[in-house]
């Protein structure tokens, strides 16, 4: 796997793409959340991404570890809900694992570290009908791809598919974490809104990284 050079500029582009994708799927995610949550997830996420992107120029000037930390701080202040501390933990965890130059191995390690931090914060793991059902498999997939040295396009496609499969897997799960857990058995049959928003953002970020659009 060869990656386009991962720096703060690319981080800002990725966040920007994630923001647009969430805007595009706003109604759908709100409806999922209305069915099994309390309806605030997508609004919190949009508020957080908007607040973060207001600082895009400053972020793009910072080194990657610093900009990941700034993003974490901004999300922590603006998102609220569970998603705020969870996303902040993800970005802080990634920031802590930054080692230049950023090879595919280092990048996979960053994501793994971030996702682990998120699991600790939420005291949650796989199969609990949360965004971790997308993020844990994606982190594992990145690790395997780095090991295999898969070409970028192949790698992006695998990440997209893994995220998609993870998101779909939440449909049949009974939630044991987050507000949906209050529904118990009644939470089955609906895709988790956090898993859906994570997958939507990952797909959008993959698009940013596809060679035809990404700077090398």
């Amino acid at each position, binding site marked *: 796997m060869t990656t386009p050079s991962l720096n703060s500029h690319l981080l800002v582009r990725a966040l920007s793409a994630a923001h647009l994708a969430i805007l595009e799927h706003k109604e759908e995610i709100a409806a999922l959340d209305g069915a099994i949550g309390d309806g*605030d997830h997508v609004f*919190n996420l949009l*508020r957080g991404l908007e607040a973060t992107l207001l600082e895009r120029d400053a972020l793009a000037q910072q080194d990657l570890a610093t900009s990941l930390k700034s993003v974490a701080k901004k999300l922590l202040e603006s998102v*609220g*809900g569970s998603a705020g501390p*969870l996303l902040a933990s993800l970005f802080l965890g990634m920031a802590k694992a930054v080692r230049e130059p950023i090879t595919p191995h280092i990048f996979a390690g960053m994501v793994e570290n971030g996702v682990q931090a998120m699991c600790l*914060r939420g005291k949650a793991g796989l199969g609990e009908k949360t965004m971790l059902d997308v993020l844990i498999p994606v982190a594992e997939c990145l690790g395997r791809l780095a090991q295999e040295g898969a070409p970028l396009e192949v790698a992006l496609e695998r990440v997209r598919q893994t995220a998609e499969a993870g998101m779909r897997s939440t449909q049949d799960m009974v939630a*044991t974490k987050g507000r949906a857990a209050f529904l118990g058995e009644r939470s089955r049959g609906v895709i988790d809104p956090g898993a859906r928003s994570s997958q939507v953002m990952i797909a959008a970020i993959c698009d940013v990284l596809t060679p035809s659009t990404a700077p090398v």
Partner: protein
Amino acid sequence: MTMKKFINSVDTFLEDSLRGFAAAHADLVELHTAPTFLSRRHRKSGKVALISGGGSGHEPLHIGFIGPGMLDGACPGQVFTSPTPDQMLRAGETLECGAGVLFIVKNYSGDVMNFEMASELADFENATVLVEDDVALPGSSSTGRRGVMGTVIVEKVLGALAEEGADLGTLLEAGRHLHPRMASMGVAITSCTVPAAGRPTFVLAENEIEVGVGIHGEPGRRRDVLRPAAELVQELMDALLEELSPAPGAEVLLIVNGMGATPLAELYVLFGEASQVLERLGLRLERSLVGNYTTALDMAGASITLCLLDAEIKRAWDAPVHTSALRWGR
């Protein structure tokens, strides 16, 4: 159906509402912005600072309980969304006055995580009391139980003790003493509408009710059809009594709390039924409270809370309080 609310815009709803609150109760509270929190106007030095917070939409919880005898500060989040750690940090830094900070947190994952991050980042001494009084879910559930109306009892009782000079350790112990003695459960007859969402959070058919509903419209035990008040009260009281198993002759505090859109007259219907249940069981109704204290925006519904009293809890409950929502004694 379009949303019908008194708002200017959904984006400014919270700040407009808080500005109004601060203007109405300028003698009691002060509104701080960037980040947002409210504090007592007249602070008392040397006491543990009691700070609570949570999503907005439950008013008067928590801002209405700021004042002598209860909270020192409160951090309101967006509607039904937990506040963020920067709010708790700033509130703590501003209100801490030598005896540390006690955070009172309702058990929801967002509130817990945001308060936890604030607690970890804080330079001041702090401790947390977690409220989980809603018995709609089993105590063994993966999320633990939700914090609802029992929060007001915790804020009142610990607030009275803090006012008398109790230290952090004593307040934590009082919280542990109080907790197994309280239980709450609610029922909704309509949904509620988060302004930013613009439509009801859940849908109840004309004759449907949600038994065990949470204060954000989260589901409870089951859907049912609307039944006479006496039957609904019996079901709620059975759940509370099963949890608390009071000894015969036990003294209790009984609270009937409105969820926002239920007339007081209906709340009194519920209170009348609940007090009869107590009487039939030989339990002694020693203290009571009826009104809208822990609401869920425009939900029509109510919750019942029982608290087993002892001399210490009764004394702390009776202690003077001067807040916008609770006021007695001197």
